[in-house]
């Protein structure tokens, strides 16, 4: 009902000329700095949103299976590359609100990254396990890098990030390895493989300076850290044994490490199978604290200024969101903004945060100072929210 009410005036005023497939839309010149997309995963659709007016601008359907979909942006902020579960890679233009290019590149995919120069888009795949790299402009395949286990079988790939200099890093869930792929010559990728990094890496992140790659481990308590500035990078364990030998809780949803939470010298990381956020010093990589939270953390994300860290949770605690005040390292607020909060995204300077309330079919916008609700948008089963400010950030 609400949706129709939102769309009727829009359709009438613009008459959606591009839907007829004839002339290009007559669009006013516009910037992209306050645009973003929300994944409507049940319908294979992305919603294009404006973070200044807090409105839904359009919906782009036809993107396939968007469970666990993720998005990276070209640095013009206009092109969004959407990675679907079904292995599809789709480039959507946020200004024309159209699909510009689409390839079915794998059987089962989990996300991707874009090179620092914006020329290469890489997809991380479960089936067949590996990384495929595409020309960002044409979506033509330029490199296919299989991920293998010792016995030659394929490994699922997780934690793919961009690194400075046309490089990517990723981790192999089934092979306990981290790979660094140099695509300065895309037709001849050079892959450096680090084995024995720890059991079952499930996701990873790169620090904003592009220096440290950190993979979370599912099969053991700890994370694997690689200093990429070293001449010969190697992996070492950090926060080893953070569970102190206690039985972990059942993990109903894997934490996500992307969305790096760094505030000053500290990084905030989700503990697997525990109701805790771990605090680590980024100079020494020693644990300097742990914060008890309301459930098993999924996303632990710093507001862009680092003053707050917001945490959402795995089911059955995913109706809550908590706010950590970083100077005091205390939970200062517990919010219940909706049912099944799957994702959070800050506006570029962090005065507001957008949250997906999947089971309310709503996206809620909150003021991060006084926690008041600024807007609520009707969106069908929203999951990931991605704003164009990601285009300028390493590892996003």
């Amino acid at each position: 009902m609400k949706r129709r009410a939102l769309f009727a005036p829009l359709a009438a005023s613009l008459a959606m000329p591009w839907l007829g497939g004839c002339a290009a839309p007559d669009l006013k010149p516009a910037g992209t700095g306050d645009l973003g997309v929300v994944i409507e995963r049940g319908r294979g659709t992305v919603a294009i949103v404006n973070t200044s007016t807090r409105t839904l601008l359009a919906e782009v359907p036809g993107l396939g299976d968007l469970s666990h979909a993720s998005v990276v942006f070209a640095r013009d902020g206009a092109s969004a590359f959407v990675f679907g579960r079904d292995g599809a890679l789709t480039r959507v233009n946020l200004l024309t609100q159209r699909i510009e290019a689409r390839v079915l590149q794998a059987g089962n995919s989990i996300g991707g990254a874009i090179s620092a120069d914006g020329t290469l888009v890489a997809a991380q795949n479960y089936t067949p396990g590996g990384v495929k790299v595409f020309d960002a402009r044409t979506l033509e395949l330029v490199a296919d890098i299989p991920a293998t286990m010792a016995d030659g079988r394929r490994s699922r790939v997780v934690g793919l990030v961009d690194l400075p200099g046309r490089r990517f890093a990723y981790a192999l869930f089934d092979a306990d390895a981290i790979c660094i792929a140099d695509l300065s010559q895309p037709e001849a990728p050079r892959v450096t493989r680090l084995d024995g990094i720890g059991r079952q890496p499930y996701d990873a992140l790169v620090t904003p300076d592009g220096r440290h790659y950190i993979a979370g481990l599912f099969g053991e308590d700890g994370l694997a850290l690689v200093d990429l500035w070293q001449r010969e990078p190697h992996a070492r364990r950090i926060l080893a044994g953070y569970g102190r030998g206690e039985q972990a809780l059942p993990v109903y949803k894997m934490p996500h490490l992307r969305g790096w939470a760094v505030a000053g010298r500290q990084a905030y990381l989700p503990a697997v199978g525990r109701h805790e956020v771990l605090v680590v010093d980024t100079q020494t990589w020693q644990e300097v604290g742990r914060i008890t939270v309301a459930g098993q953390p999924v996303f632990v994300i710093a507001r862009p200024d680092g003053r707050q860290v917001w945490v959402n949770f795995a089911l059955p605690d995913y109706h809550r969101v908590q706010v950590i005040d970083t100077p005091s390292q205390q939970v200062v607020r517990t919010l219940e903004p909706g049912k099944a909060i799957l994702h959070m995204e800050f506006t570029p300077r962090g005065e507001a945060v957008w949250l997906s309330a999947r089971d309310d079919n709503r996206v809620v916008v909150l003021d991060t100072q006084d926690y008041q609700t600024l807007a609520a948008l009707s969106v069908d089963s929203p999951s990931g929210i991605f704003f164009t400010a990601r285009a300028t950030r390493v590892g996003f």
Partner: protein
Amino acid sequence: MRRVVAAVALPLALAASAQDMDRARQQSLVRLVRQDCGACHGMRLTGGLGPALTREALADKPIEAVAATIVHGRPGTPMPPWRAMLSDGEAHWIAVRLTQGFPEEPKAVP
């Protein structure tokens, strides 16, 4: 804490067999499988971090084995035990439907 809750809830939930599970609960189970199990197995259940759970993929799996995996999880893999959230009867109900081809969620009312 959660374990205590589960221990109390389980005998009560066991009473909810396939026959007397009400329609609302069935719909919430369908949504749970599609949306939450779907985080690892895919909303179309074609697999991801977890294996595919389509009718074809489960063709040679006994229903009891599927139900037991739901209830007890698979140690050493990311598959958790769901017994704190599902009764044996509910796990069996899900297992039967997975092997038949899992129902779709009803379309959201616009």
